[in-house]
C-alpha cells in the first residue's frame, strides 16, 4: 500500500479514536493534568499498555517497524518541559489540537497557528543551539532492553502490571458531578 493511502487510513482511525476517546477535549486533558478526571488517564494507560503489548508481540514475530527517537537527555527534558507547559496552558497537544480544530473548536485553530510559529522558531533557533546540546548525554536511538540486562518481555510485563495497578487505584467510583 502506498504511504499516502496508509497514512490517510491510519490517520483517519487515529483522529476518529481521539474524538471518540474524549482525548481531543481540552477539558478532559486539563482535568487529567489537575488529577481531577481519571477517565482520560485510564484511557491513556490502556492506550499505552495495548500499544506496548502489541509492539512486543510484533517484535517477537519480526513484524514491528520501529522508529526509536534519539535519547539526547538535555533537549528531550527541555522539550518535554516546554511541551508540558503549553499542554497545561491549553489542554492541547499537536495531535489532539488538530483533532479539536477539525471538531469546530476555534481555540484549537488559534493553538495550531501558535504551533506553526513554534515550529518556525525551532527552525530558526536550531543551527545555534541544538547541535551544541546534542554533544552531551547523547545515548543515541536506544531502547531500555538494549541498554539494560532486562529483556523486552520482562519490561513489558512489569510496565503492564504497573499500569493495571494504576487502573485499579483510579477505578471509577461513585460519580461526584
Amino acid at each position, binding site marked *: 500500500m502506498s*504511504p*499516502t493511502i*496508509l497514512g*490517510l*487510513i*491510519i490517520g483517519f*482511525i487515529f483522529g*476518529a479514536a*481521539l*474524538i*471518540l476517546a*474524549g482525548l481531543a477535549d481540552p477539558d478532559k486533558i*486539563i*482535568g487529567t*493534568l489537575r*488529577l481531577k478526571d481519571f*477517565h482520560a488517564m*485510564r484511557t491513556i494507560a*490502556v*492506550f499505552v499498555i*495495548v*500499544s506496548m503489548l502489541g*509492539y512486543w508481540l510484533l517484535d517477537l514475530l519480526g513484524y*514491528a*517497524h*520501529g522508529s*526509536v527517537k534519539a*535519547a539526547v537527555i538535555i533537549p*528531550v*527534558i*527541555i522539550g*518535554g518541559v516546554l*511541551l*508540558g*507547559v*503549553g499542554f497545561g*496552558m*491549553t*489542554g*492541547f*497537544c*499537536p*495531535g489532539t*489540537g*488538530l483533532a479539536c480544530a477539525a*471538531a*469546530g473548536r476555534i481555540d*484549537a485553530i488559534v*493553538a495550531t*497557528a*501558535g*504551533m506553526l510559529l513554534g515550529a518556525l*522558531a*525551532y*527552525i530558526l533557533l536550531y543551527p545555534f543551539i*541544538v547541535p551544541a546540546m546534542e554533544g552531551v548525554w547523547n545515548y543515541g536511538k536506544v*531502547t*531500555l*532492553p538494549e541498554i539494560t540486562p532486562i529483556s523486552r518481555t520482562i519490561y513489558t510485563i512489569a510496565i503492564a502490571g504497573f499500569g493495571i495497578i494504576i487502573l485499579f487505584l483510579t477505578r471509577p467510583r461513585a460519580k461526584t*458531578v
Partner: protein
Amino acid sequence: MQNTVRSAPLKWLVAGIVLGLCQILAVALSDPLGVSTQFVIVDTKIIQSISPQYVQDHPLVSADKYQSFGYGWWLDIGLLIGAFVAAIAVRRWRIRGSTVWSHVNGHSLGVRFLLCFIGGFLVLLGARFAGGCTSGQFISGWTQLSLSAVPFTIGMFVAGMITARIIYPKTPRIDK
C-alpha cells in the same frame, strides 16, 4: 455555553483498546504514530518559497525528510478528516471558542485565545526539541520502550501538572 464537561463517547477501556490497535496497525504496516514533524515541513515549504537558499543551507530542514509530504503528512490529513467525521457522527461537532474549565476559571475568550496561541507555540517548540510530541515521544516511545520516553514523560507531566494548577486552579473533581 454549557457548563459541564460531557463524558467521552466511548468508555475508557474500549477507547484505550481502539487507540492501542491503531498504534499496532501503524507499527505493523508503516511507522509509529507521530504528529508534530509535519508542522516543520509546512514551515519549510513556506520558507522555501521565500528563500530557497536558507533551506538549502540549513543543517536540519535541508534533509529530504523535511522536504516531502509522505506517510506522516497524510497521517495528519487523515487525522483531521477522521476527527471531523467522528465529531459529526457522534453529534459533537460544534463551533466554540472556549472550554468549560476556562469559563469556570474566569478566562475571557481573549484570554483563552492568548493562552492557546502561546501554549501552541510552546507545545510545538518543545515537541521539536524533544524529537516528538505526545504521540511520537510519549505514546510511541513507551510502545517501543525507548530510553528517550523516560526523561520526556517526567518533564512533560511535571511541567503540565504545575502549569495546569496555576492556570486552572478551580477545576472540580469529575469522573465520567
